[in-house]
């Protein structure tokens, strides 16, 4: 690429173009004006004007989740930047590739408590893979190249580039580098993969289980996972971000395990003699009490991030590397081990798991004609969309109902806030997903509490005429908190009942989009059909679900994984 004279602001736009960025989410402001001015001329980079920067960050996440590309968001200095923080922290916890670009006050004012000044690099240090405060415009092309590179490689995550206004206005000879050279950044591998040791454990195991996490999505290793799963023949469990790593309709797939996993999935993990963890990190929401977690299991742990190995659960055999490259080698090594020396009998184990599955299915009890059951709503939407919709969720009971009852059949289909558990994620993420996948049917499963945390961005969805369908499982409670209060705080519902506000149908009307409501099971079918058929913009569906319905089974926080409350 030839050098050309340009400004820092224009260099940002050129870098985005060079990175193939098609959508950016943000809100302009004083300290980022030069970049917005440069953006005005770009024909390749389109900008979504969100109504709050948090939405911009979550939309960038949704876009990245759905497409596998880097999501990009903008914010101005001070509050613009701090409003991005929740989305950046969310992306950090869930390993979502994201580049956040913020304007800052001019270099001469930095450190003077200037108007709308915030030390956003200091603030985001613990929630970014890396961040930069650009002090010299000449560094800008290199920094942007490094930013995209770091965001998407290794274990992906968010990065932030903070650019003072004078640096945006300064001139430079622009040349976008083709390569990066970062002395301290070499996505693994430091250890020789111990494939033979892993294969030997698999060969010897009579009660193996395969545990799939978000890393499968990160490395798009779906075919590799399926080949491995079918060779080993073991039951498969997933995390919430592992949903879709193997179709949940696959006979070996037991779905999600952990705090709200199915009993049969938790029993399987707990009783296994070998856990093969692929792109997962043994989060407390899946392990339950660590000291009692799968007491007889040896652990094969394959992950791209060496710091996840033996962080919580000591790996018997660690395998550090990219799943997509390493798993086929493990499959091959396992195949050889089976051929050379046979393997332990697993049929009785598979039978035992099948028996658990039959005896302890996921279930709920319909409560007559006055109560819409939230689980039933998820099942119905799944049926009506043949399980093909892309789903985003908020955080709370509705999210766990969706995780339990939405049988994810495709990769990148179930998009949620897992690690950080950010209420308000659903609508912003749905916006990003729909822009990344314009032809897909995108539905949101949200709660009434969660929806209200970011509902202002209905305007954004309407502006863009996005056909997203937000189904609000409305129980007039902060339901998950209420559930804990009922179970562990003696029914003392401190600050969890929500008033019946706003009127979601009128709200939809105020935003010039379609609003629908179902209060009884008899009304549900027609409302769902109408919502799914609606074109020309978003639809908000207020579904009044049974107020005191709880998510079961449940492993209480700090309890062993097989010690589940089932509500019966």
């Amino acid at each position, binding site marked *: 690429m030839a050098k050309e004279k340009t400004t820092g602001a224009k260099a940002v736009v050129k870098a985005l173009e060079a990175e193939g960025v098609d959508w950016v989410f943000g809100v302009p402001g004083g300290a980022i004006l030069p970049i917005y001015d440069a953006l005005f001329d770009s024909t390749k980079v389109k900008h979504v004007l969100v109504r709050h920067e948090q939405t911009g960050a979550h939309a960038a996440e949704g876009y990245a989740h759905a497409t596998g590309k880097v999501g990009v968001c903008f914010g101005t200095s001070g509050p613009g930047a701090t409003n991005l923080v929740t989305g950046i922290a969310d992306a950090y916890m869930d390993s979502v590739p994201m580049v956040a670009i913020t304007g800052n006050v001019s270099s001469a004012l930095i450190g003077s408590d200037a108007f709308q000044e915030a030390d956003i690099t200091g603030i985001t240090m613990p929630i970014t893979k890396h961040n930069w405060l650009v002090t010299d415009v000449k560094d800008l092309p290199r920094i942007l190249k490094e930013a995209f590179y770091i965001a998407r490689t290794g274990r992906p995550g968010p990065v932030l580039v903070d650019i003072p206004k004078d640096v945006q206005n300064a001139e430079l000879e622009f040349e976008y580098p083709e390569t990066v050279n*970062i002395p301290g950044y070499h996505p693994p591998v430091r250890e020789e993969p111990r494939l033979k040791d892993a294969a030997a454990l698999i060969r010897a195991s009579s009660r193996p289980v395969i545990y799939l996490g978000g890393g499968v999505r990160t490395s798009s290793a779906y075919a590799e996972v399926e080949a491995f799963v079918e060779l080993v023949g073991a039951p498969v469990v997933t995390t919430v971000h592992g949903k879709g790593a193997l179709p949940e309709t696959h006979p070996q797939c037991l779905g999600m395990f952990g705090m709200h996993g199915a009993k049969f999935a938790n029993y399987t993990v707990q009783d296994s003699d070998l856990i093969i963890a692929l792109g997962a990190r043994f989060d407390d929401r899946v392990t339950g*009490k*660590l000291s009692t977690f799968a007491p007889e299991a040896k652990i094969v742990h394959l992950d791209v991030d060496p710091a996840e190995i*033996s*962080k*919580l*659960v000591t790996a018997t055999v660690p395998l550090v590397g990219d799943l997509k490259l390493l798993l086929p080698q493990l499959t091959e090594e396992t195949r050889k081990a089976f051929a050379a020396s046979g393997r332990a009998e697993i049929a009785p184990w598979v039978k035992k798991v099948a028996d658990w599955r039959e005896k302890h299915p996921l279930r709920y009890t319909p409560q007559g004609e006055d109560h819409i059951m939230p689980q039933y709503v998820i099942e119905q939407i799944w049926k009506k969309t043949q399980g093909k919709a892309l789903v985003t969720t908020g955080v709370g009971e509705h999210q766990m109902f969706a995780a339990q009852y939405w049988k994810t059949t495709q990769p990148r289909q179930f998009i949620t806030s897992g690690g950080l558990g950010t209420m308000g994620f659903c609508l912003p993420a749905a916006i990003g997903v729909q822009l990344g996948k314009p032809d897909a049917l995108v539905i949101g499963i949200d709660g009434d509490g969660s929806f209200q945390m970011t509902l202002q961005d209905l305007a954004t969805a309407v502006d863009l005429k996005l056909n997203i369908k937000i189904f609000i499982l409305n129980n007039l409670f902060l339901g998950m908190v209420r559930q804990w209060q009922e179970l562990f705080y003696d029914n003392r519902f401190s600050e969890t009942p929500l008033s019946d506000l706003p009127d979601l149908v009128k709200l939809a009307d105020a935003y010039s989009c379609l609003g629908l409501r179902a209060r009884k099971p008899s009304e549900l079918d027609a409302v769902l059909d109408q919502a799914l058929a609606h074109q020309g913009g978003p639809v908000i569906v207020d579904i009044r679900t049974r107020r005191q319905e709880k998510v079961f089974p449940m492993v209480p926080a700090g309890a062993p994984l097989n010690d589940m409350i089932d509500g019966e």
Partner: protein
Amino acid sequence: MERNETMPSTSTHTVSLLVENKPGVLHRIAGLFSRRGYNIASLTVGPTERPEYSRMTIVVLLSSKTVDQVVRQVQKLVPVVEVRELSPVDLIERELMLVKIRTPEKNHAELRALAETYEAKIVDVSPDALVIEASGNSGKLDALEDRLAGYGIQEICRSGRIALERGFKTLAPPHLK
């Protein structure tokens, strides 16, 4: 099967880092230690044979289990070029200490003799105070500190540990050797 929920007993580890000499690096490293609850006993930072890199020596109070975790987490920081726990067997460690003692002049000769025993120097003398400079490993400085306690220590300043490994091994990764 070991589950890392309960911490085994703690001990001291010397972790050496080669880091890019850029603004904010100390903040990133100190922030990681505090955020993950790693207990810093001392931290030193200074220039190296290459102007673009600095070397940090961090003494941490940890179990051996978590020191691997510390190293792996620190390695993830982009400006950290290399990090390793230095083997206690091959460790050359030094610390510098200045001690100000308020004591009448009649004790000065005695203190001079004591300092000599510890290969320390008296670097400032006034009628009722003197300053002793000592260097060596932390154990030696601790011992000297104990001996001086009876003379009325007014102020102590210790530099924290710096350390290298014996032999030809260096911390730099292959591409920097």
